């Protein structure tokens, strides 16, 4: 589903005297359908960087990231913007710790946006969005409000709903339970398990050991794979 080979990523900070920060040094990783690979390095060691590179949010200097997409393979390092946008629309979902939205847009519309981009009709998308928000126990009175004013935990659950609504074949999860209470965490673990049962390939950074143990079918350390300590 996903194959990472010899990935290198160094940040050059031109505004700070051109300091070089090598973060990924030759990372290899293969992820198969139905697998949940947990990255288990200490913070600051490049877990987010790897996830962002796979999503083509960060641009690596060297290496390949092959993704099974629309019956073929796309290298996220080399592909042009149009292919990258298509992969994001159809194949890879990414859930970060932060929600970025246009003020004023209701939570329900935020959640169904990936489905609409997928080409699902509005009514069907709304139905699925409502079901998912209910499942994540976002109170119905909040659905028509902008998530900008929500609590951290509510925002994170909206973000998760947005990531899981479209059944992407590949999901990247960057600390998806970081600001959740115990009850919500259990809901999210269940949601991720369902996705694995649908053969979704998942790569995640879960700083919460309990969540990690509940979900990971395999753990990987970037350090062992050649990343910077």
């Amino acid at each position, binding site marked *: 589903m996903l194959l990472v080979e010899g990935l290198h990523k160094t940040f*050059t*900070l031109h*505004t700070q005297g051109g300091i070089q920060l090598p973060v990924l040094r030759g990372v290899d990783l293969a992820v198969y359908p139905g697998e949940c690979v947990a990255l288990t390095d200490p913070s600051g060691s490049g877990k987010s960087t790897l996830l962002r590179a796979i999503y083509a*949010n*960060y*641009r690596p200097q060297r290496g390949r990231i092959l993704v099974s997409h629309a019956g073929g393979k796309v290298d996220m390092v080399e592909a042009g*913007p149009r292919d990258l*946008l298509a992969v994001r629309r159809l194949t890879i979902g990414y859930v970060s710790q932060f929600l970025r939205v*246009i003020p004023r847009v209701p939570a329900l519309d935020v959640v169904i946006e990936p489905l609409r981009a997928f080409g699902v009709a509005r009514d069907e998308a709304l139905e699925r969005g409502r079901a998912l928000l209910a499942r994540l126990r976002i109170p119905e009175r909040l659905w028509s409000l902008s998530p900008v004013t929500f609590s951290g935990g509510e925002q994170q659950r909206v973000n998760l709903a947005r990531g899981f609504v479209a059944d992407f074949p590949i999901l990247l999860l960057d600390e998806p339970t970081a600001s959740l209470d115990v009850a919500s965490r259990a809901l999210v673990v269940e949601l991720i398990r369902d996705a694995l049962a649908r053969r979704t390939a998942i790569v995640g950074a879960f700083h919460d050991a309990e969540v990690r143990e509940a979900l990971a079918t395999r753990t990987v350390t970037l350090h062992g794979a050649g990343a910077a300590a």
Partner: protein
Amino acid sequence: MDADRPLLRARGVTRYYGARVGCRDVGLDLWPGEVLGIVGESGSGKTTLLGCLSGRLEPSAGTVEFTGRDGTVVDVLRMPEPALRKLARTDWGIVHQNPRDGLRLGVSAGANVGERLMALGARHYGRIRATAFDWLGRVEIDRERIDDWPETFSSGMQQRLQIARTLVTEPRLVFMDEPTGGLDVSVQARLLDLLRRLVTDLGLSAVIVTHDLAVTRLLAHRLLVMRGGEVVESGLTDQVLDDPQHPYTQLLVSSVLQP
């Protein structure tokens, strides 16, 4: 239409003002349904580039091609004037930074919207008025104000009226120059939400010039960063904002509050 042909393709677009460079050697492909942001500080050449792309400014060198509804490719810069005016009326829309440049201040709001339809041959008064009525609602202008003159509107309302006037003919490509410039923050958010919905619902493509990186984060799929008339960096919007490569882009991104 051939899906493997960009809607707009520019190569080597260069424009001098005397010896001074307006923009130099700019190339881009814009695909159907895509929103392209052009960012940079004042004087970086972004408005000059927008003028060249939309056929309003004659470049010193370069080509701009547009793929029409029937799939034929036209050379925007070498088209006869009447054909270019027709294209601007039918397939294109231009949203000016100052709504007063895009509106006719001496006629009512409804007439501002209806006029563009009439220019395309619409003659049935009732239908034109109904469409204008519908569009005022879509851009959230109180429909009761259909007979008021735009001069009595706030600047945010004028901008929304200009957008209604531009989009009523369902253009396939919209050029926007700082569409949210000079507006209050609350009005900006409302306009951004509106623009994004219209882009999704109508499937239109847009080229948006702005100095506001936060605006591009929310509206644009891709970005070009300009400096001194040249494109110094390009990529997906989040790539450019989250992992800027060029020293100038890094400076730009690090100088604003949370784009």
